[in-house]
């Protein structure tokens, strides 16, 4: 089942790359991918928890427990659902492409396939490899179909993410070698059991923690490794910005929850520099993500930069949930990965649609779009409300959990302080998002806007599915948290 789920986008992408078909193939593939995801979701027995739908090959190399194996648990299911929903919206919201349209669509599908593979892989090596696979079409799409200084941006992103991947690789190797030789494996399920035995001494946990946090951190745009993100999303074609910020970026967080949290929990309490523990270090960095990047976002005067920086900012909240290292905070972090992915994808979808119509996302040139394109305006408003953490949307439920996690018994004074400071970020995000909404959608209609046409046809459903899913998860978060709980409890064991 999972193999089929993975093969659908890959095979369609290859067909498109070879010149067969057209966009409707991509649309069909995205729909099938989502349908299969829902099928797997419905087949997953939540009461049992753990990995299900497992398939595994024989070891690929002698002497290494490395197999091509797939499987899903609650966490990967949630991210798979995110991938499916965003992929459908991304394909439908793709702009009209003049040159090499099939190459474009195929590459978009490959990003989705890579992300899905990373979440499906039950083997650490393939988890890593699928993410790398997804990055290659990302660079290609930015460099070839991007806007603005696309070549420079593509190069910058390449360097950043390549460095990140190398640091990450070093961290993975370091962690692998820290595990006693007899127990070494690439299998995530086995690794989970190994981690639960707490075999790595506390002091030995610090170095892999630093390497992995830095490596994953670069991919997640953790301060100070964030400066690639906003220009990349501004330059990237709409579906790429949606898929990368919404889905692919979550890989780093996924990796931290899969590997850092279970294997290196002691590291959080170990000093890294003077009295400063690893947790303090992480809190310092994530506060920069929230407060400092929040301020940077306020200063932006282009819609895509506002969204791009806001996405960097919100990663701070996920990190806060992780840094609290308890079930409440981690549940919030995971639900926020899902929620943020949907809301930021919807925001980029609408901003891309505006760029397609206006050619620019400068605030000076925009205004009154709510009169011209009411459907897009409503979708953007819903995504904005979600993104600033309004109750009803799952972003609120997630952030609330993150804050409660930061205040749970046993939280250090700095963690509590950081939580209160992070809470101020909720004010900051309302400032920039409402300001951006007003600049683009409210006020008198500009003359250019009078000629725009609103979104129509099936694209309306593809886009609306994102905020509707957020509302659903916001009203009934417990349903989703039930899927996450066994995974997170195992990781915290």
């Amino acid at each position, binding site marked *: 089942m999972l193999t089929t789920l993975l093969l659908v986008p890959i095979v369609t992408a290859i067909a498109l790359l070879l010149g067969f078909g057209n966009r409707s193939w991509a649309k069909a593939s995205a729909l099938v991918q989502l349908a299969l995801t829902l099928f797997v979701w419905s087949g997953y027995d939540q009461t049992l928890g753990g990995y299900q739908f497992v398939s595994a090959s024989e070891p690929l*190399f002698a002497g*290494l427990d490395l197999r091509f194996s797939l499987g899903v648990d609650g966490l990967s299911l949630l991210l798979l659902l995110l991938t499916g929903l965003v992929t459908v919206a991304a394909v439908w919201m793709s702009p009209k492409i003049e040159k090499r349209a099939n190459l474009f669509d195929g590459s978009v599908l490959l990003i989705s396939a890579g992300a899905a593979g990373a979440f499906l892989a039950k083997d650490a090596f393939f988890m890593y*490899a699928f993410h790398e696979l997804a*990055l*290659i079409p990302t*660079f*290609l799409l930015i460099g070839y179909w991007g806007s603005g200084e696309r070549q420079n941006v593509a*190069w910058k992103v*390449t*360097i950043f993410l*390549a*460095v990140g*991947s*190398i640091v990450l*690789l070093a961290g*993975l*190797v370091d962690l*692998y070698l820290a595990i006693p030789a007899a127990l070494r494996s690439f299998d995530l399920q086995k690794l989970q059991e190994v981690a639960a035995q707490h075999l790595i001494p506390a002091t030995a946990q610090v170095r892999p923690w630093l390497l992995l946090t830095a490596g994953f951190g670069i991919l997640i745009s953790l301060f*100070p490794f964030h*400066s*690639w993100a906003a220009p990349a999303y501004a330059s990237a074609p709409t579906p790429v910005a949606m898929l990368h910020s919404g889905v692919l970026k979550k890989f780093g967080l996924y990796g931290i929850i899969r590997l850092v949290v279970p294997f290196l929990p002691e590291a959080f309490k170990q000093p890294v520099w003077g009295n400063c523990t690893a947790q303090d270090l992480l809190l310092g960095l994530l506060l920069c993500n929230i407060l*400092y*990047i929040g*301020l*940077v976002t*306020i*200063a932006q005067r282009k819609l895509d930069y506002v969204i791009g920086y806001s996405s960097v900012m919100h990663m701070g909240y996920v990190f806060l949930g992780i840094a609290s290292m308890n*079930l*409440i905070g981690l549940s919030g972090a995971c639900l926020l990965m899902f929620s943020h992915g949907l809301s930021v994808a919807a925001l980029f979808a609408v901003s891309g649609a505006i760029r397609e119509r206006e050619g620019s996302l400068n605030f000076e040139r925009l205004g*009154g779009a*709510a009169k011209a394109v009411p459907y897009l305006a409503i979708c953007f408003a819903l995504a904005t*409300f979600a993104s600033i953490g*309004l*109750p*009803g949307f799952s972003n*609120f*439920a997630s952030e*609330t*959990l993150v*804050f409660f996690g*930061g*205040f*749970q*018994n046993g939280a250090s004074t700095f963690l*509590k302080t950081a939580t*209160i400071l992070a*809470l*101020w970020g*909720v*004010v900051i995000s*309302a400032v920039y998002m*409402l*300001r951006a909404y*007003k600049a683009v*959608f*409210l*006020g008198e209609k500009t003359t250019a806007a009078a000629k725009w046409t609103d979104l129509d046809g099936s694209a309306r459903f593809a886009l609306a599915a994102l905020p509707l899913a957020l509302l659903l998860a916001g009203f009934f*978060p*417990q349903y989703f*948290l039930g899927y996450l709980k066994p995974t997170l409890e195992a990781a915290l064991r």
Partner: protein
Amino acid sequence: MEFLPWLILLSPLASAACILLFAHRSKALSVTLSLAAVLTAFGATVALLAAGSQTVASSVTWINLGPALHLTIGLKVDALTRVMLLVVTGIGALVHIYSTVYMAEDEGKSRFFGSLSLFMFSMLGIVLADSLTMIFIFWELVGVSSFLLIGHWFTKESAAKAANKAFLTNRIGDFGFMSGILLVWAATGAVGFDAVQQNMAKLTANPALLTLAALCLFCGAVGKSAQVPLHVWLPDAMEGPTPVSALIHAATMVAAGVYMLARLFFLFAPSPDALTVIAAIGVVTALLAALMATQQDDIKRILAYSTLSQLGFMVAAIGCQAPGSAMFHLFTHAFFKALLFLGAGAVIHGLHHEQNIWKMGGLRKTMPKTFLTFAIGTLALTGAPFLAGFFSKDAILLAAYNKGPLFFFPLLLSAVLTAFYMTRLVVVAFFGEAYHPTGHGHSKDHGHDGPAAMTVPLLILAALSVIAGYGFFAEPIFGHDLFHTAHSLATFSAAGVLEYVDAPHVALVPMLAVGAFVLGTLGAWMLYSGKAKDPVRIPLFANRFYIDEAYAALIAGSQEMLASVSDWVDRYLIDGVLVRGIAGLTWGTGYALRLLQLGNIQGYAFIFGAGVVVLLFLLNK
């Protein structure tokens, strides 16, 4: 029984959802849905009141992560809830009916009624909430529906700005509110009202923490009930349609802060310091806003400052340990202030969107029904003896009297000013000669009473403004047995007569209150009768003490400047130096790759491949 509160809560939600999803194309259908929802809620409230005075509670799980955190959406109906339910659904229904005429020609009518339903849902959620987290959820939702309704005419720059200002100012208060919730949860391990109350000992053991938590929670009320220093959003919120101002920005939403303080009074009562701060903020708001109101020319803005001032009275009452009096004033104020706003709306509607009182004049002849009801509302607000406001304001003044002269005399002065600015409004707008731009003659169309859907709600509210003070509707809340620790000065009694507990000098206070009414009314009458323009100009009051200007400077000097500096740092230091530093390290690789005629993608694939080889080598050794 248990389904009634759920019916009250969910019927407006159903209406809002239907309008958003499909009914918005048909204005008639949207109006029908919205009306049906509010009438259902009102009917269910009446049924609930008829069913007796027992406490009803039921809840569903929202988030459950084991014993550490179990958040529920739970409804609790007790005496306090019932009073608020009646106010919210009753006035809500009248405002809905009124709006069908007032917004008849509006092209965004469906959106208006959809937002109104969303508001009803959110507000009723606050009223019915049984836990801190749930009240916070609906607190924020009320904020967004207020945002939507203030910005209803969003093509107007000023309306869009006012909507943002209201939302953001409230968010600042909510930051404190959420911090307070976290502090309370960390100390007591609970968020449900009852559970927190049972665990109060854990909070009272640490008085400093208790005061901090109480003040944080109070921040939420400061934002929502527009108390100094977060009061600036409410006058600007008058950009919204007038029925919205009546329902949301006078009668219900802004009263939510007071309701929350009353609901959580058990948490504030053990902290004398927190109570004093609350009383002080309330008194300052009451006085400052009353001073500002004396020099406004826009009919809605005068009423807005008046609302601020009256909310100040209510908050002060909480601080003076008289939550019963605060709720009593909330109850009466809701009727006469909604009446005054709807009356102002009738005037604005009749005069084709004229809002300047100096351009009105003589309306008592052209709009007799509006005049009559507006006059009753004014008398009720200014504390004319035996009307609703007299009793409730008296109760608050008495509480302040017992708290100390520093609290009593500013409130008494505010009462004088209330009579003054309201009489000024009525004298200028309704008496005298009709305004004419050229200075003589009568304009052809100088106002007319609205149709029945507008005047009937006015008449109903006028009747309520007369009789609400006698407490036919309310049952005892904050009786002695409820709070042993907090000695509530004034309580509702079943008979509806105020019952003073433990209050010396009873006679002096009402006498002074009557004196304040007479002084303010006569003063304004003598000063403004027959005048065509304002004989007094006090720029400090007219310009609201320049607080908005000071805030604009503060925001420009702090937030905007910090934002620009951060942007610069990010662009030139982090990206410029740090990133180019890293890029410099890898430049060698990049250069080598370019020599090999490899582009980005291939280069990346190369690095990736090399990585895999190195990995396999390392792991195999």
